[in-house]
């Protein structure tokens, strides 16, 4: 399977995603410069975390106009797999490829720590290999407070498009387990056809034993599994 990791000016988890895909998943991976427009070589496009364009104005607001994003739109429309992690999620939301927006954390502070996440739907390209109810994955963001209007939230729930929610270690959805104020503890959502995923937690940060946790790997493995089964 061939991955393309997009590099925007200010991306800073690009190398981390690249490393995990190559060294841990042992899949083919290439960097895609934000000015490139040909995504046809790739089976999955990764929009990595970081501070694209310094996150000035609003996170993801400037990056969404990069030439590559027009191609990402087409790639997704054609059913291609797109995963946006953290800043990547913010860019997807700004670009309208995922609904809602990400506001400043209610703590008004950047938060970097492990959180527990209840997996809400395991029948997706991103979660088919998840074998437990709760995943432990780190977050690292200043704007992860997901908002959307009631109608959108209803629809996301109804269609099973909320994939991850902040929870306690047992999987209970509580206010205390919500690190950033996100509506309904939402940490990750998918597009209508489930081929686009946006999530605030960083699966690439917990995909190796030496880093302490490997729950992130279940997400990466799901994608590869989905692809190898022929979608």
């Amino acid at each position: 399977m061939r991955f393309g990791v997009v590099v925007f000016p200010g991306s800073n988890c690009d190398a981390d995603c690249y490393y995990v895909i190559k060294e841990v998943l042992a899949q083919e991976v290439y960097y895609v410069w934000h000015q490139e427009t040909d995504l046809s070589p790739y089976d999955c496009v990764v929009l990595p975390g970081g501070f694209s364009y310094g996150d000035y104005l609003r996170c993801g607001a400037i990056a969404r106009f990069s030439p590559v994003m027009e191609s990402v739109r087409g790639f997704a429309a054609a059913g291609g797999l797109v995963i946006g992690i953290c800043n990547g999620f913010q860019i997807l939301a700004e670009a309208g490829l995922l609904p809602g927006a990400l506001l400043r954390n209610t703590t008004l502070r950047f938060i970097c720590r492990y959180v527990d996440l209840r997996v809400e739907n395991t029948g997706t390209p991103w979660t088919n290999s998840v074998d437990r109810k709760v995943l432990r994955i780190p977050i690292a963001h200043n704007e992860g407070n997901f908002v959307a209007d009631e109608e959108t939230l209803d629809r996301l729930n109804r269609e099973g498009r909320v994939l991850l929610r902040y929870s306690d270690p047992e999987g209970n959805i509580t206010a205390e387990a919500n690190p950033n104020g996100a509506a309904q503890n939402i940490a990750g959502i998918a597009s209508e056809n489930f081929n686009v995923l946006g999530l605030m937690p960083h699966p690439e940060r917990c995909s190796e034993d030496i880093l302490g946790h490997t729950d992130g790997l279940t997400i990466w493995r799901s994608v590869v599994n989905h692809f190898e089964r022929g979608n």
Partner: protein
Amino acid sequence: MEAAKPVSELYADLGLTSSEFEDIKRVLGREPSAVELGMFSLMWSEHCSYKSSKEALKMLPTQGPWVLQGPGENAGIIDIGDGLAVAFKMESHNHPSAVEPYQGAATGIGGIVRDIFTMGARPIACLDPLRFGSLDKQRTRFLLGGVVAGIAGYGNCLGIPTVAGDLYFDACYDENPLINVMCVGIMPVRRIIKGAAATPGEAVILFRNRTGRDGIGGASVLASQEFDETSEAKRPSVQVGDPFTEKLLIEASLEMLDAGLLVGLSDLGAAGISCALSETAAKGGVGMAVHADRVPLREDMEPFEIMISESQERMLAVCEPAKAAAVIEICERWGLKATQIGEVIPGDKLEIYWKGEKVVDVPASSLADGPVYSRESARPQYLDRVAAADLSTVEHPSDLNDVLMRLVASPNLCSRHWVWEQYDHMVQLNTVVYPGSDAAVLRVKGTGKGLALSVDGNGRYCYLDPYTGAQIAVVEAARNVIASGAVPAAITNCLNFGNPERPDIFWQFIRAVEGMSDACRALDLPVVSGNVSFYNESFGEAIHPTPVIGMVGVLPDIEKRVGIGFQSQDDLIVLLGETLPELGGSEYLKVIHGLTEGRPPGVDLAKERAVQAVCREAIEQGFILSAHDCSEGGLAVTLIDSCWATGLGATLRVETDLAPAEWMFSESQSRFVVTLKKMDLPRLQEIARAQVGVPVEVLGWVGGKHLVINDWIAMHLEKSREAWRTALENILA
């Protein structure tokens, strides 16, 4: 600056002394122009010239077979094998942060990160030793919040994890907090580059942010004078950081170096372009001709202002003329403006032109080699008083559980996660041991190795005895690194002191440098970089002398790393080293009795060396399950830390002649608490026998939900942990 004023009156406004002004005239053989005078005033300021500290710093050991670059460059560099080198350095941004905490701290990170990639290294970690005034002051809380947010705002954006630091509160820092920042980078040995021009004809290229009036006179105005009522008026000197641009500078600079395009690379830090040009030229033994009117500006500026502006995120590259186009092209791909502003010329002249007219014509070396002073030094009188304190009469409270609870929830000992959770400490996927341990441990990808990083420096100890206090900073940093499984390799430092023109302050400085030097020699630790920050005073009151040490250790095999947390039921808890009745300068005395008195714990360098060797060898043999250095708070705090880390309790049966409070809270040096399986005890004893003076004392065993020490302490882990964990955020709420 009023250009109308003759230079003979201007020099004093710029902070130069009359004899320095005479020296400048002698060097030039004439009166300097106003622009030249401005440049001299910055380059000869304490901050840039080290005029008061240069002599003393010569005491420090700087050599070692693994040292690739000692002090004198933007950062020190050591060889860690496998063709890799590690560059690191520490800096202060105390005064800018006192004026504007967010931007002051942010630009501090920006500056130290530039020092690292300027050497060719990719920055892989930041550390942030911080000292603030008492937490009950509103101003302290404001400064703390702003500084931490500033470090986070800048460092997180760069994608450089902030993996360790420290944080002390003491009233002596009320007005003058210490914001020190350290950066560590890694590179292939072949990519090392120095900030020197080499051959006439080479192009001098300035790239990145445009120049504005930020921080005009920042170095001389802010860093080299004490604080007083006029500080407010100096505010325009504050710079605003742009981490996004800096991130692009890192990528573009490393790309140019990988492509072999550059002869020299330098950042523009304090004293801006004047400093970068004169140092780059002087180091290469050449001159430079530069056109100030080609410098891209944000606003209309005088040549004087351009030469001394401290606008952030600017770099100076020197390359062969044929490669200039390629350099500019890389910059442009990263969206960075690059402009050739001049060229290298023969001789030693730094010539600056403004619209064709020569406005500066000085020997580059005269700017770079400022004056050197031997300051007067005299032992401060307060030392007799604090040393005479009789601590044997201190009455120890009977409820020691209560004492321990108060200690672990006190500002200097409570959990710092409120700070480090604001820092991205994971990005780059190297952080194997997070903040909250003795040292942070990073893996070195592509090798089986690791790096252990720690910063240490207790100002209270140094106040009570600067010589011993500085030694403790070194030996404690080394122990932190050893307890993680690493071999200490080299140090950097940041020496924060008051006004060096005061003999009592200068005495503190000299004694601290002597202490640091002796400890480094005893432990074979070269000092490869560092920084001196003087004039940390406000309203005539100096801070405690505060040398801060930044240590880098290497783990030959990262799989042999060790954490502070107890591992399993029934493991033996063993103390390496000896506990003495040394409550002087302790947190116990300060928090429980309100005293800053006595003598700090003593350091016996031979014993220290021996205990470190034992701990190191035992970890190397692989049977040590946890290791924790004993430092502030004493043994009781060390033990409960290890309990909390993994949620396992401990029961200790202690026999001692000391009072219980002395045994638990004395801050004696040269100690580690380690755990191991019972059957491995003889191995540890044997290793200890090979050294002189390293007692091995079995204290108890791991297990249960409580920490129990004789009938002195019986503490429930979960409840006490909550008090420790939430103390800082409760105080700040």
